[in-house]
Each structure stands twice: as structure tokens, then as C-alpha cells.
């Protein structure tokens, strides 16, 4: 009888232990399942060329599910994605269209400018150079130059901006140098060509996001604006001196943002929100100047500068978490960024600064 009871007990113990083992097995299976889902999502992101997001997903699979086979697969995939990300992309349709539109407009202006410089008597010359050679040449040239080019959206934006900036800087320089009308027009054409060429060389081989391009663009514009107001604030009367300072201020703003953008790696959306904050601030400055009936040009410009700076600062402050990863995996992402293998890759991609974090929850606005 005793041996029978022993058999029954042993049997039941075995069954119980098998149940426990099965539960452990299910847990392992579930973790495997989760790792697979994350890995598959990362692969889909790679297909969509969302490389930074894919790397974050793969990091998640590696660090949160190290015991699964998908962690190993993810490690291999991550190296592949990191290599893919550094390869220049074929130009997107919208970026190509942007370059072609700018090229055509610049070609048209070059044609018209050439006409003004040459000052021809015949209408045939006007028709040929101004209306046909310029626009058609600009369109054809820009289409040919961008046909099989490999450029990211950020690079394309910066090339366009380089062309526009070159025109502005060269025109301003010619005015400051007291050149005549033909000289100014010639300088603007030459400036555009130099700007396009220079920006093409600068962006080549560099990883530039649309956000970087927007930041640099706005940096130039805000630099110009602050320098213009600053020159008026400094009581400078000479218009050439004001123009020269505006140009230098613009260059300074542009260079500052060019230096800062790889560190900040701001999204285009955040850059635009900060910019709109600056515009609202400038409008507030303008309104305050009118409401307070400030007559002095100097004081008025001071109020404008304060308004713009406050607007930009407020925009930066309230959007400080805009680019941070939100949602379910946000905390896990932070941990991974801090210690993961992909931290360097991510820092060069998204460029969020980690480590020091100062939070002042005085005002909290969610966008």
C-alpha cells in the first residue's frame, strides 16, 4: 500500500512540476514572441528607410530580450542599418522638384539679369535670352543635374538655401561696395552660382537632416533680423553700414546654427515651432511699441529685439520635449540610449543630449 501511495505521489509531483515547467516555458515563449514583434517592426521601419527609429527598435530587442534569438538577429540587423544610414539616398521627388523650381527661377533671373547688363536694342535678343534661354536653360540644367543625384531632403534644402543666401550676400556686398546697377545684378547672378556650388560641396558626404537645414535657414534669417535691429539700436545712420551689419549678423546666425545643429539634432517640426514663437514674439514687440507709443526708433528696435528673443526662448522652452520619444517605450529608450551599443549611432542621428537634465515644472504645456 505504501509503495502505491509513493507511486501516486510521485506521479502527482511529476505532473505538478511539469505544470510549473510549462508556465516557465510559456513565459520564455512570450518573451520570444515580444522580441519577434519588435524585430519585425524594426525590419518594416528599415524598409520605410526610417533608420533611426529602426535602430531604436533593434536596441530595444537587444537590451530587453537578450536571451532570445531575436537579440542576436537584431544585433546583426543594427550593424546593417547603421551602414545603410550613412549611404547617400537617391533624391526624393519633392526635393528634386524644389531644386528644379529654384534652378528654373534662378535661370530666369539670370536671363533677365543678363539682358539688363547687356542692354540690347533688339527685341529678338530680349526674347531669346530673357524669355527662352533663361527659364528653359534653368529648367533643363537643373533637371539634368538632379537626374540621378543622391541627396537627402536636408542636403537638398541646404543647397537651395545656399543659392538664395549667395544671391543676397553678393547683392548686399555689391551695394555696400557702391557698384552700379549692372554691377549689382552681375554680383547677384555670380553670388547665386557661387552659393549653389559652395553649398553643394559643403553638404556632400555630410549627414544633414531636414531639421538641421531648417535650423540653419532660420539661423541666417534671425541673425539678419537681430543685426538689423541691433544696428538701429546702436544709432547707426549710414544705410551701407546697417546693410553690412545685417549681412554679417545673418552669416553669424547661420554659422552658429550650423555648428549647433549636429549637437541638437532638432526635428523640422520643432525648428518651425520655435520660429513661429519668434514671429509671435516679434509681433508682440511691435504691438507693445505701438501701444506704449514709443517714438524713439532706438527704443522701438529694442522692444522688437526683446520681443523676438523672448518669443524664440519661449518657443525653445515649451517645445523642449517635442523631439523626445513618447509613449510606451520612452523610458526603455532612455535606458538603452545611456548604455546601449547604439548610443553613439543614435547620438549622431537624433542628437538628443543626455545626462544633465534640469526640469522646472513651473509651466507645463503639452503640444
Amino acid at each position, binding site marked *: 500500500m505504501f509503495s502505491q501511495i509513493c507511486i501516486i505521489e510521485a506521479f502527482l509531483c511529476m505532473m505538478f512540476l511539469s505544470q510549473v515547467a510549462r*508556465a516557465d516555458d510559456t513565459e520564455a515563449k512570450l518573451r520570444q514572441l515580444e522580441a519577434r514583434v519588435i524585430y519585425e517592426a524594426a525590419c518594416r521601419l528599415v524598409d520605410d528607410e526610417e533608420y533611426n527609429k529602426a535602430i531604436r527598435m533593434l536596441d530595444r530587442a537587444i537590451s530587453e530580450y537578450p536571451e532570445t534569438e531575436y537579440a542576436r538577429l537584431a544585433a546583426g540587423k543594427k550593424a546593417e542599418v547603421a551602414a545603410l544610414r550613412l549611404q547617400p539616398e537617391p533624391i526624393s*521627388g519633392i526635393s528634386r522638384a524644389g531644386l528644379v*523650381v529654384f534652378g528654373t527661377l534662378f535661370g530666369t533671373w539670370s536671363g533677365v539679369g543678363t539682358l539688363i547688363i547687356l542692354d540690347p536694342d533688339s527685341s529678338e535678343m530680349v526674347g531669346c535670352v530673357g524669355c527662352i534661354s533663361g527659364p528653359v536653360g534653368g529648367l533643363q540644367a537643373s533637371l539634368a543635374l538632379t537626374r540621378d543625384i543622391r541627396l537627402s531632403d536636408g542636403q537638398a534644402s541646404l543647397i537651395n538655401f545656399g543659392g538664395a543666401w549667395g544671391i543676397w550676400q553678393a547683392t548686399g556686398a555689391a551695394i555696400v561696395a557702391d557698384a552700379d546697377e549692372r554691377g549689382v545684378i552681375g554680383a547677384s547672378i555670380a553670388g547665386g552660382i557661387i552659393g549653389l556650388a559652395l553649398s553643394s560641396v559643403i553638404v556632400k558626404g555630410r549627414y544633414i537632416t531636414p531639421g538641421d537645414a531648417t535650423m540653419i535657414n532660420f539661423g541666417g534669417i534671425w541673425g539678419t533680423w537681430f543685426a538689423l535691429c541691433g544696428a538701429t539700436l546702436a544709432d547707426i545712420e549710414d544705410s551701407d553700414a546697417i546693410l553690412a551689419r545685417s549681412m554679417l549678423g545673418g552669416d553669424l546666425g547661420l554659422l552658429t546654427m550650423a555648428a549647433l545643429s549636429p549637437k541638437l539634432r532638432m526635428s523640422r517640426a520643432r525648428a518651425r515651432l520655435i520660429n513661429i514663437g519668434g514671429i509671435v514674439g516679434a509681433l508682440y514687440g511691435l*504691438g507693445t511699441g505701438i501701444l506704449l507709443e514709443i517714438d524713439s526708433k532706438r527704443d522701438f528696435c529694442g522692444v522688437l529685439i526683446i520681443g523676438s528673443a523672448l518669443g524664440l526662448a519661449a518657443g525653445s522652452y515649451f517645445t523642449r520635449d517635442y523631439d523626445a520619444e513618447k509613449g510606451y517605450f520612452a523610458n526603455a529608450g532612455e535606458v538603452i540610449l545611456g548604455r546601449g551599443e547604439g548610443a553613439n549611432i543614435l547620438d549622431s542621428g537624433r542628437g538628443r543630449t543626455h545626462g544633465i537634465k534640469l526640469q522646472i515644472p513651473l509651466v507645463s504645456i503639452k503640444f
Partner: protein
Amino acid sequence: MFHVLCPLCASVSLCVDNRQLGLGRGSRTVNNVYITLAIISTFCILCAQVVTASAEETAAERLYEDAFRLIVEGDYGEAYDRLDEVIAKYPGTVYARFAEDRKRRLEELNPSSIRRKKIDQSGRIESVVFSTLYSTWLGVGSARLANAESEKATAAGMMIGAPAGLLTSLTLTRNARLSNGQAALVNFSGYWGTWQGFGLGILLDKDDDEKTLIGSAMAGGLLGILTTSALTRRIDLSLGDASMINYGGLWGTWLSFCIAMIANIDDGNSILGSVLMGGNLGAASMTALSTKVEFSPGQASLISLSGVVGTLAATGVLAIVAPAVQIESVEVVFATMIAGGILGLWGGYNEFGMYGQNTTRRSGQETLSWSIGDQFHRITSKEVTVRFLSVHF
């Protein structure tokens, strides 16, 4: 000795030998039988449990996988519901435990984001920027309507309008579905409505009173924004569609102006009326066309640019030819520009209309494919480039 086959798994047999167990005959044998049957029953019950659990497990696994996939994709609302389902249907299981843990992590997020569906907000910033600028105009316009002379009122209107637009648009679009295409169309409607309202104001008010013009422009813009906002809630259109409608409006305006010139209409109001109508016609026809053809915004821009270049080139040709053939008529000039523009648009459509349609985005190489019988052939631009001939099968 008993040989029992498990009725469920059909693979387990149990053999009990009385002698081996050291039991005697009689009541011992009966006890022995009962005990053996009890063991077999327990075993069978456990087997049945395993089989049932296995079927349950598969269903639970599938449901949990769905829920987790939704979490990874950011569709928290759906994921939350699926996790609830896992907990309710399979309580006490590992799946329920995992689901509870995931649900708790979701609950730590912003409550509104838990219940929200995954939404496309790619056009949000575009809308915010537009709304800020537009409401600045509304503020200035309202101030001018209220007190046309006062600079201070205008400044106050501007100071109220700009932040009001910024904050209102940020709040209204926080959890709203707003794609790039929808945002572009709503913004276009704002501009278009303002222009149409302004034009109608000129047509209706003979004195061109400033207040009437500002009021009608504001009303037109608001009407445009509200109508399109309501429409785009039901219609999901792409950025390419929005670009087509935009360019359609502009080309309709320009072409109707040229036609008015050719028709020798002298009255300013009649020209304005035809221009407004032409613009609407252009936008409406492109709206109808956008449901049939699919263009990317890049394609739409390039086609439109070709039209502009065509117009300029036609003007150039006219400038070259005019002295020789003594063209002095304005009608001929505008007719030539129309012809140039339309030719340019047509050329642009032929050149860029198919651009990107036979190629995947960013593929970087164009692919020509055709089939003869059962065979499928493909040539990529890396192998052969035929630029002067385009054949579509």
C-alpha cells in the same frame, strides 16, 4: 495486468502487474484496480487539461501578440482593449499576467494617449504655422473693422490674434488626425477663400469701402477653412492631390485672365469676375481629376513649372517673331501665352506625369517592364536608357 490507452492523446499505455507490486488477490486486487483506475483517471484528466490548455494557449498567444504589436505600432487605444480581452478571457494564465503588466505600463502614460487611436499628424505643424499667421491677419482685420483709424486697436488685434491662433491651433490639433494633404488643402482654402472673398467684396461694393473688403476677405477665408476642415474629416487626400488643386486654382485664374484679355473685356469688374470664376473652375476640375490620377507633390510642381516655362518661352518666341510679322495685337500675345502655357503643361505631364509611378520611391532607377505571353521582362535604367522614347504597357 491492465493495458490502458489514453482516449485523448492515444499514445500512453499503462501496465500494472500485481505481482510486481507485491499485492495479493481478493480485496487487494479490487483495491489495486481502483487505485490504478484513479491514477489513470487523473492522468487522463491532466492530459485533457493539457490539450484544452494548448488550444487556449494558442488563442491567448494570438490575442496577446496582436495587443503587443499594436503597442509597438503606437496604437495604444486598440492595444489597451486587446489586453483587457486577454485578461478577461484567460484569467490566471501567464498571458493575463503579462497583459496586466503591459496594461499597467500603458496606464502610466498620458490618459488621453491611452484611449486614442494611432493617428496621422504629419500636417499638424503646417496647420499651426498657417493658423498663427492667419489669426494674426484676423486680429488685425477685426481691429480695422472695429476701429479703422486707431493704430493702437490694430496693434492690440495683432497681439491678441497671433498667440490666440498659435494656442488654439495647438490645442485643437493635439489629438486630431491631420495628414500633410489635409493640412495643405485647409491652408489653401484659407488663402483661396480670402482671395475670393476679397474679390467678391470688390464686385459687390461699388465704393470699395475698406471695411467691406476686409470683412468679406475675412468671411471668405473663414468659410473656406471651415468648409474644407469639415470635408477633409471625411475625405482622406494626399499631398499630391492638394498640390494639384492648388495649381489648378492658380492656372485657372491665369488662363481665365488671358481669355478675358483675348475676349477684349474692358470692364475691370468683369475681368475680376471671370478671373474668380476661372480660378474656381480650375480648382474644381483638379479636384475631380485628383480622384482619377495620382500625382506626388513633386510631380505636380514640376508639371506646373513646365507650364510657367512654356508661357515664358512662348513670350520669347513672340518677341523674336513680332518685329518680322508686325504683331501688335494684345489678343495674339495672350493667345500665344495661353498656347505656350498649355503646351508646357502638356509637355510637363508627359515628362513628369509618369515619373515615380513605375518606380518605387527613392528607388533611384527607373524600370521598364512588359510581358510577352507568360514571360515577364524588365530593364532597369542601369542597363539601358532610352530617353527619347517612352512606351507604357
